[in-house]
């Protein structure tokens, strides 16, 4: 695993990554989340649907962003930390 991607993350992506690690009880350091790796499925973080629900709760609480499952962009939104971060920045209400 790439362990030195921290320099690539923006400040907001670091904040978001920390929220995800806390919400999912992930046993990894901030530096281990590659901002361009997939979040979902068997590569990257390998999160599953229950995790996605947990992440959605964090997004609502922290940023006022509500995810919808009929959003055709979900696959793109969860394609990476960077995409998720961009989605939040465009849709945040707080």
């Amino acid at each position, binding site marked *: *695993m790439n362990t030195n991607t921290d320099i690539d993350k923006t400040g907001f992506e670091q904040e978001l990554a920390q929220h995800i690690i806390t*919400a*999912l*009880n*992930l*046993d990894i350091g901030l530096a281990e989340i590659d901002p361009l790796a997939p979040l979902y499925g*068997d590569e990257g973080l*390998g999160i*599953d*649907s*229950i995790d996605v*629900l*947990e992440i*959605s*709760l964090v997004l*609502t*609480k922290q940023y006022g962003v*509500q*995810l*919808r*499952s*009929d959003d055709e962009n979900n696959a793109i939104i969860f394609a990476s930390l960077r995409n998720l971060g961009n989605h939040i920045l465009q849709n945040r209400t707080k």
Partner: protein
Amino acid sequence: MPSIPLLKFHHPESVFAWQDGKTISAQRFLTDVISLAERLPARAYVLNLCNDRYRFMVGFAAAMLRGQISLLPPSHTSDLVKRLAQHYADLYCLTDGAHRPGSLQTISYQNLSDVSLLQASMPEIPATQVAAIVFTSGSTGNPMPNEKTWGAISRSVTAEASRLGILNRGDLTLLGTVPPQHMYGFESTALIAMQGGVILHAAKPFFPADISALLNEIPGPRALVTTPVHLRALITSNTDLPELELIVCATAPLSRELALQAVERFGAPLQEIYGFTEAGQIASRDTASTDEWRTFDGLSLHQKGETTYVSGGHVVGELPLSDITELHSDTTFLLHGRTADLINIAGKRTSLANLNHHLNAIDGVLDGVFFMPNEKEGNTTRLAAFVVAPELDAREILKALRLRVDPVFLPRPIHKVDALPRNSTGKLPRTSLDKLLQQCKRGC
């Protein structure tokens, strides 16, 4: 031979289902069932993977008309589908989506809305016909089959609808957050509409905003059929819901606190359902006000030694409960947790023995064990695993497991160790594993 009609209580013109913001009449449902039945291949077993709950029901009913049996396995991992295909040689798959198991002949659900309405009489299905086989995960990697006759499942959901006070409520729509392919969703969102006379909602909302939006689209009285995971998500996200007549919850134990919050926030009574694969649903409780479960009408419990059995009503013979039970009477009881081997995460069930079997079947794994840490309130508790596998890294082990077990059971984290703390008889006492977990957290 006694038979039971496919639909009870619904008149031909009455609303049977909601799909994509439109109503579907009982007659339309019958037309779709009969039309699809003519298009199904001549096979004995079907794996129905339709995502849309209405299409799932049409598929299930059409298969029954053809005398075919629907298989409901605990998950749809490629390993499990292969095992099923080996055991049920002429199994085929019916699907309305992208998930197509490579190892099975697959039929796409066709849109049947162009077929003009048939003036067919209500089909009657023999009560003794096996309609479905529901599997528990078993302990050796091979799922254990439980045959469900049409008569037994009809009686089970009729008892449920009656207990919930919604039998023959043709104006009430049930929205479910659980899939119809597992026992709870199968009975409490799908079959209950066919046999209990309520309206089925085709959608399976996931995020709190989905649940709220769909409930708001339903014009009449509505009920939510859900799980503790989704209830907690709705409350945590502060989601507003329209007026609900009832909340039904099952799959994992619901805390009194969460039940009280749900009742207060959504202003609706909440009924928690208890059941298990072999028997179906057997009891309910008003969790916000009592810990005590009450069996459905006609069922009773008795104890032999330390095991509690249920019999009567829709239960065939007598069946042992896998939970530790304290009887108050032959119809009221408390549950004191599952017996140690059973694992329930987010409503999906398996056993540690089954998971350990799959872990140790991986090439390169010399020894390995799954471990359930003590549960914490709040977040969903995940399994950990200790693995002796000098040639593999955690990522490779995870990749191999992913083919064999449902994602919610994947260990988080995997601890690679030099040896497991087996005692002189080869067993792994929980206290030793607890100690090992603490060591690993400090860095092993």
